[in-house]
């Protein structure tokens, strides 16, 4: 029996090893589920340009934008799992697409195997620089005193920012915001700077420079550690709201069924590229916080986040709109 097992193992292992050695023998596609020019796209192009040197084959960034990522992820879930098709997964955007029954997504969370995470952009609450709300307590007190009166902008329905508002309301009982959804960060900026909206739930990367210049005031960062880009701004746990942890992360995944040695090979090249000084420099200039996670660490993060997103997605759908 032992000999059999050994032989079977050998038979399986040899082709896999050969496969891994021969991989990659042709250019690799890296799908971005957003149109060219967004921050996911730019970061993807930077990583691709560096990683292809180590991989020995070119990495072609392919934009399949549409429906908040759903078009690209649908295609990715159907791609041949041979390691030549990688894609960026943006969390929790991917999770809410899967979790929102209205979306009728053609894939579930198991359709993707996370390979390596690149960016973790923490959530942040900010107000205009001359706002009367000097800190988080001021804002929450106002939202408790006048429930449903203080307007709060999100960058989209069921975006990480939308979920973050719900987390905040849950952690600070009695505080209720008047949630106003915009499409993306630019209209949020315009509306708050113009004084039409009182506060915004957003991400560090989109606002950190303006916080530095004083145009905006950051009230709290929704992460367990302070952001290197704004070390003076307290985190939510420091302020006593341990559960308000929200971020938008971007990492690379492959379709389910991709052989393990191939994944390892990709992980190796991608990790090397992400540790590259050029990559680090470009990301810092863009205000994007790196959090490189590979293997089981990233897989665990993905699973836990999915469960968390499920709770708040359900809630977002049932919360009365007033």
């Amino acid at each position, binding site marked *: 029996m032992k000999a059999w097992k050994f032989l079977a193992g050998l038979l399986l292992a040899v082709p896999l090893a050969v496969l891994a050695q021969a991989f990659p023998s042709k250019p690799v596609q890296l799908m971005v589920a957003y149109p*060219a*020019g967004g921050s996911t796209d730019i970061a993807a192009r930077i990583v691709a340009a560096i990683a292809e040197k180590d991989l020995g084959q070119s990495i072609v960034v392919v934009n399949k934008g549409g*429906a908040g990522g759903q078009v690209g992820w649908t295609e990715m879930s159907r791609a041949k799992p041979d390691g030549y098709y990688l894609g960026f997964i943006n969390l929790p955007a991917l999770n809410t697409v899967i979790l929102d029954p209205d979306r009728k997504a053609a894939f579930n969370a198991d359709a993707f195997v996370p390979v390596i995470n690149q960016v973790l952009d923490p959530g942040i609450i900010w107000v205009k620089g001359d706002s009367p709300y000097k800190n988080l307590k001021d804002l929450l007190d106002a939202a408790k005193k006048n429930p449903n009166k203080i307007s709060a902008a999100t960058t989209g329905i069921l975006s990480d920012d939308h979920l973050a508002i719900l987390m905040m309301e849950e952690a600070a009982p009695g505080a209720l915001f008047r949630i106003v*959804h915009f499409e993306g960060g630019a209209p949020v900026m315009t509306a708050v700077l113009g004084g039409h909206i009182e506060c915004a739930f957003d991400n560090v990367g989109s606002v950190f420079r*303006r916080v530095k210049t004083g*145009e905006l005031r950051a009230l709290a960062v929704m992460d367990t550690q302070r952001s290197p880009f704004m070390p003076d701004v307290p985190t939510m746990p420091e302020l006593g709201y341990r559960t308000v942890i929200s971020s938008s992360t971007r990492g690379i995944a492959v379709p389910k069924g991709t052989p393990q040695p191939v994944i390892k090979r990709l992980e190796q090249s991608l990790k090397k590229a992400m540790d590259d000084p050029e990559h680090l420099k470009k990301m810092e200039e863009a205000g994007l916080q790196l959090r490189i996670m590979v293997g089981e660490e990233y897989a665990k993060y993905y699973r836990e986040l999915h469960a968390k997103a499920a709770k708040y997605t359900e809630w977002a759908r049932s919360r009365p709109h007033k």
Partner: protein
Amino acid sequence: MEGLQYLATGFASALTPANLAFALAGCVLGTLIGVLPGLGPAAGTAILIPLTFTLDATGGIIMLAAIYYGAMYGGTITSVLINVPGEAASVVTCLDGYQMARQGRAGTALGIAAIGSFVGGMFAALALVVVAPPLARFALSFGPPEFFALMFLGLCLVTGLAGQSLAAALLMTVLGLLLALIGIDPVRGAPRFTFGIPELYDGLGFVPVVMGLFGVAEILLVVEAPFRRMVETKLKGLWPSAEEWKRSGGAIGRGTAVGFVLGLIPGVGAVIPTFMAYILEKRLSRHPEKFGTGAIEGVAAPESANNAYANAAMIPLLVLGVPSSPTIAILMGAFIVNGLTPGPFLFKERPDLVWAVIASFFIGNVILLVLNLPLVGLWARLLKVPYQYLCAGTLLFCIVGAYSLKGTLFDVGVMLVFGIIGYLLRKLGFPLAPAVLALILGPLMEKSLRTSLEMSGGDFAIFATRPISAVLLACAALILAVSALRLAALKSIRGGAS
């Protein structure tokens, strides 16, 4: 006039051989991107961002900005020559520009477009130098309620696009608005009319739809009746006649004004100003019936508006750091990857860079004019190619364009479907322009209405209590009343359409 002093130093920096070369390269690349349908300014700029990583910040941004306004002009060329808008903002130019080309006046149309663009661009750039800060504050006063009022006003003007039949124009408007609603609903996130197809969640792509309605439909009409040549007569002179100059002068001025004001308001986008300039021109004209048959004002006004818009949209970006359109957002991305955040502080931190970029707008507008006027004759001569080749080439163009938008075959399919619809509607003489304008206005209007109501907690008074929106809505009511009177005065609802 402190600005003018800074501007002088800016010119000194922008006129160095290297920066001049970047501006020139940007204009050429931009024109190419504009000519290729599908690849609009937004996608084109995005794709070329990595190219600028290797340049220094000033040179890179000068080049990207040049690509942006080069693309805005390049779209005109295909609109005039083959009725395919190279980018969305050139749709209106198809209406009269292509008719001019069929009469052998492609050169004149392209010439006046180049000159109008130059005037519009220069004016906006000058305004950026002289009065930018108060203008930028004006931009911020437009919240969702004001924006809704503006879009509603735009919709009321749609009857200005009617041909002989007002009813047909209204019917097409409703159709356009309905088609615009396809996709994910902006407040609840519920998909509407999508048949479960994820590609439809973002709605019908504007560019594939107009490429189908105009480009593909035109080819089908030509194929059906080859004697209905794409170009009916010999090419005529390239330079506008004295009479045409006279007619264009006012159009260029008004187009510039419309494009400039709308360029300041974030979110309006590049298409609406061109439509508004066209409608205004038609309303003011003593010969509105000539519009759609090759009226030079119908090219001059929207083209001036287009470029005035493109340059004016830089004002909110540079002064406030607020990107007012997707393309501008990508340009902003280019600033950011270079470690710069556009906004009031950039003027203090890196005045050298900001003013060099501003100076480059002037230089870029001159380059575009110098580059394009001599090329006009060359482009126009392209129409001498036998129609079979022109047809096959145009169709290839459309397929590449539709595909390269998002990299999906779905858009190619949308384009073909709308090609067939456009062919049938044009055969019958239904006006397509109202449907196209409605397609743009629809989502903006619904989104801003419902965002406004989110802001007010469902109270409609928000539109009446805010001064700008109240004034705009009052104007809209006035236009509606006048239109209703006109409608009542019409005897036949079909109004003797052909």
